[in-house]
């Protein structure tokens, strides 16, 4: 199974409510993925202050991080430590904290992951008080690899990029080998990470997000509904069979995507939203 929720706000007056709305949405897809969860939030001033580089980490405590990184500020969120600092923060972390796992980096985005009940995790993340312009969330029912914070979604492997996945890729081992041969490094044996690395690789080579997702459809076998976000975009794509559910709802104030309608029903103005199921192998992108 696995549950996906995502919210891209168009109406700035809703930004103070991003975390509250995302928490409510996540709470509706717990049964789809009760073993772990993760979220990515864009634009929260506490986690990602303007002008600061932000790196989300597993395997280090905030105290350790601040001691190893002069001038950096670390915030704890369950298993995750979110650090913000100068523009060269990621390089500094790789040098000073080589044992830490980077689960997200960018200038505007924090990634929070953990294992356990998604509602309890949202509470541990302090998600309901988070603000910002975009957020994605995932509840995981593990099929391909172990239940660990590293294996939870979102997979964020490029600057400001996130991928959440419902489904399973069949040919991920082949594509992982090909990407490794091109110098791409992997953190896990997880199939969804391969999708995220593939997209990040295409974007790095200069592809637009639409093109990267179309290439993913051509190259990947298996079942997938994907929600992909970047520093300015929110995108949805499904495989040709489209058996993994997806619903999009859109109003003048927001665009939202979820695995099930009940997660959209919590949003303000849902009664007037345009609601539709994304067509198979069609790439949908909304930009800020």
């Amino acid at each position, binding site marked *: 199974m696995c549950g996906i929720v995502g919210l891209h706000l168009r109406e700035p007056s809703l930004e103070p409510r991003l975390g509250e709305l995302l928490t409510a949405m996540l709470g509706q897809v717990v049964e789809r993925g009760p073993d772990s969860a993760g979220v990515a939030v864009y634009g929260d001033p506490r986690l990602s202050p303007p002008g600061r580089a932000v790196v989300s980490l597993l395997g280090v405590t905030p105290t350790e991080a601040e001691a190893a990184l002069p001038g950096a500020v670390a915030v704890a969120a369950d298993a995750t430590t979110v650090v913000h600092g100068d523009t060269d923060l990621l390089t500094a972390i790789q040098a000073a904290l080589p044992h830490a796992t980077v689960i997200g980096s960018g200038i505007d985005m924090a990634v929070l992951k953990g294992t356990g009940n998604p509602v309890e995790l949202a509470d541990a993340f302090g998600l309901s008080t988070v603000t910002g312009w975009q957020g994605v969330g995932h509840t995981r029912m593990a099929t391909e690899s172990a239940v660990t914070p590293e294996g939870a979604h979102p997979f964020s492997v490029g600057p400001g990029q996130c991928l959440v996945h419902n489904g399973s890729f069949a040919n991920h081992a082949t594509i992982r080998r090909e990407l490794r041969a091109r110098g791409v490094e992997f953190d896990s044996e997880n199939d969804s990470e391969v999708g995220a690395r593939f997209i990040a690789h295409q974007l790095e080579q200069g592809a637009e997000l639409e093109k990267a997702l179309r290439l993913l459809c051509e190259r990947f076998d298996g079942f997938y509904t994907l929600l992909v976000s970047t520093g300015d975009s929110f995108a949805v794509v499904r495989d040709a069979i489209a058996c993994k559910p997806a619903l999009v709802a859109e109003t003048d104030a927001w665009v939202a995507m979820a695995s099930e309608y009940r*997660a959209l029903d919590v949003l303000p103005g849902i009664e007037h939203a345009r609601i539709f199921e994304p067509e198979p192998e069609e790439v949908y992108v909304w930009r800020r």
Partner: protein
Amino acid sequence: MATLIDLAETPVRDLNQALHEAPVASWRVLNPRGAHAVACGIRGNFTVDIEGHVGYYCAGMNQQATVTVHGNAGTGVAENMMSGTVRVRGNASQSAGATAHGGLLVIDGDASARCGISMKGVDIVVGGSVGHMSAFMGQAGRLVVCGDAGDALGDSLYEARIYVRGTVKSLGADCVEKEMSAEHLAELAELLKAAERDEDPADFRRYGSARQLYHFKVDNTTAY
């Protein structure tokens, strides 16, 4: 006067229990808010009006009752229905009417992928369009589509009859267009009437099984 049940206050399990135990003439269900399994496994000559969008498997296994969803329905609405009528005023998600043996399922809007998958005798009338692989492995019953059909319509079809008014993106394996005789026009007119639709049966085309997949062909032995 309908018996009112508000799902904002009453759990779905209690609603279904009430529908199973004391089937009064009419029920009205408020605030479904995408809940799964609303009005599942009910049996009896009564009506249930659901005021809003429902989640998965609404009115699944229905026998005799008339269930109306005044909104959209999630995956598998009226799956395995035996008899009665289920009507969705909005759109339905994938696998609407899956494996249903009898009764009438009407979807006023669109139905997405695999509408009528493995249908076993149900009649389905869709006012809008259907997604890919609709009537996949359909064994009996009729599927009427007033709009368009997606890819691979009627793939691996056994004996269900399919009527489509608009375009068919592609036909699935062993599904072919068939002649529309007076008998078919008459049955289609009856189905449209039952669904309270005013389309002209003459505007539809009929599709069915070419019956080429029924028996294994010895020439294909080497293919496996």
